[in-house]
């Protein structure tokens, strides 16, 4: 693709997205909830689209298509099991939302600290999130760099691509906090779902229709439609991949924080169902891309080339190919800016406000806005370094955040859970995941997430039983939740 085409596409996207960000403003933000949670007044549709754009990073359409290309239908199972796991929002969504309304939480880590009556829990949860999510953002930024330079055969450099993504992420989050992030996310999600689905229609049509598509897959690529198929998706690989993702909706703060934002239970419901339908379509689309590339271009060096090769091929009209490519870049930005916003709110609310106890909401907000570009620049610098360590942390992000799951579940379901149990489980299991990933160790053939979760559960339960529970706080918190859940008829 010529760099003129790419830059034209990027320019059109930047103009539309910036105007959208600007239009999303709603008065001056004076407090943390207004800026970081859209004043807890977000509508259901925008919440659903933004949740989708935040969850599905650039690499869904590259990574999942690539995984399908390399391992077959197991990739579909992996992503759909994650989507079924979003049912956790059915249980935790109303709970997060109700306690957010009652206690004014801005971040999920703040909720943990308050519930376990120990602010160290909030500090540790916030720092753990930063340790895993800043490198994850860095890899997303690097992805934009690679994608743009790849699309133009190096005419647009890696550095220009990453700088562009960094600046856009800063602008979209600074204009109006969550509101501008959510609206630009929605723009990206809608354009993407339409254009990506159109690509599927074009490609399947070119390949002779649906019947011939699946028929050729079975004939030319035995094992592509079953697991373990060609052996790529062994059961332990499948389990290791899916487990961290089943709990993604409560373990990853950039999405669990969104449970505080809807304006009503009705909006929360729309967010949940809208996201699930979006994710379902998006998953089927990505997997179909992978299969189509396998049929038409069977000899690619790696699965990651499946999407770029397919989009640049004569199966897809050029203009549509460019729209989708720009959409993939926008998808990276929409994931990064949401993560930045969440991490900034955590560092401000759970670290700065703990260190400076008399800080006002206004001061916290000011610090938060200052921290936003600092996080973006840190991610940018990491992306430039291209250190192995960054890649390790990024890959282990979902497994690393999994270690917080026992404490999060305990928040609502176990009166006996204690701060000591939460702290030990997060710190020890988090460190274990990090070292397993760093050294590439697979105990008994299982991935780091499996061991991280197991150790985290044992420590959380064991140490909680051996230490005194914050009875008064637990009672206040759980009684309020129970009463309100009953009023709202939620499970």
């Amino acid at each position: 693709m010529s760099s003129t085409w790419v830059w034209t596409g990027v320019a059109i996207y930047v103009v539309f997205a910036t105007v959208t960000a600007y239009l999303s403003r709603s008065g001056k933000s004076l407090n943390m909830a207004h800026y970081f949670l859209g004043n807890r007044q977000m509508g259901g549709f925008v919440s659903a689209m933004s949740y989708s754009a935040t969850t599905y990073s650039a690499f869904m359409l590259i990574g999942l298509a690539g995984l399908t290309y390399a391992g077959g239908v197991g990739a579909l199972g992996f992503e759909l099991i994650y989507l079924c796991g979003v049912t956790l929002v059915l249980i935790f969504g109303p709970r997060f939302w109700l306690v957010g309304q009652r206690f004014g939480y801005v971040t999920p880590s703040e909720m943990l600290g308050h519930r376990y009556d120990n602010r160290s829990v909030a500090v540790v949860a916030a720092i753990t999130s930063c340790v895993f999510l800043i490198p994850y953002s860095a890899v997303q930024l690097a992805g934009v760099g690679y994608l743009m330079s790849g699309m133009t055969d190096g005419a647009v450099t890696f550095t220009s691509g990453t700088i562009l993504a960094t600046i856009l992420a800063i602008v979209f989050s600074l204009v109006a906090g969550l509101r501008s992030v959510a609206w630009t996310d929605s723009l990206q999600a809608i354009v993407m779902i339409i254009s990506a689905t159109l690509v599927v229609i074009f490609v399947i049509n070119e390949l002779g229709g649906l019947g011939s598509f699946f028929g050729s897959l079975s004939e030319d690529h035995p094992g592509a439609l079953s697991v373990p198929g060609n052996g790529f998706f062994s059961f332990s690989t499948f389990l290791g991949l899916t487990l961290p993702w089943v709990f993604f909706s409560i373990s990853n703060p950039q999405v669990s924080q969104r449970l505080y934002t809807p304006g009503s239970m009705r909006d929360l419901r729309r967010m949940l169902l809208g996201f699930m339908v979006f994710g379902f379509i998006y998953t089927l689309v990505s997997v179909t891309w992978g299969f189509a590339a396998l049929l038409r271009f069977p000899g690619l060096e790696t699965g990651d080339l499946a999407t770029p090769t397919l989009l640049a091929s004569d199966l897809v009209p050029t203009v549509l190919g460019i729209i989708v490519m720009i959409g993939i870049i926008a998808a990276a930005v929409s994931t990064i800016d949401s993560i930045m916003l969440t991490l900034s709110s955590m560092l401000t609310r759970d670290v700065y406000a703990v260190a400076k106890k008399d800080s006002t909401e206004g001061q916290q907000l000011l610090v938060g806005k200052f921290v936003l570009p600092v996080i973006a620049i840190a991610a940018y610098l990491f992306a430039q370094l291209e250190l192995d360590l960054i890649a390790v942390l990024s890959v282990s992000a979902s497994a690393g955040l999994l270690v917080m799951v026992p404490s999060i579940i305990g928040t609502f379901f176990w009166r006996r859970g204690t701060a000591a149990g939460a702290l030990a489980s997060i710190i020890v299991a988090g460190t274990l995941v990090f070292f397993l990933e760093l050294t590439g160790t697979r105990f008994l053939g299982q991935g780091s997430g499996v061991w991280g979760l197991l150790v985290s559960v044992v420590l959380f339960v064991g140490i909680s039983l051996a230490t005194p529970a914050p009875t008064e706080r637990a009672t206040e918190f759980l009684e309020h939740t129970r009463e309100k859940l009953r009023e709202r008829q939620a499970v």
Partner: protein
Amino acid sequence: MNGSKVWWLVAVAVLILLSYLVPYTLLSGVDAWYGSFLFWTLVTAIVIGINAVVSSAWRD
């Protein structure tokens, strides 16, 4: 938790468990669209349906 809603959640848990078991056992030899591809797709559609039913009771 309300009784009937809990059963819906148990159903989702069972469906997720089956999503691990069935494709690796019963369907591992079915190398066609009506094998694991259809199974996972149907399971997800049912789970989304359950989410719609359970959340339809939510009140503001």
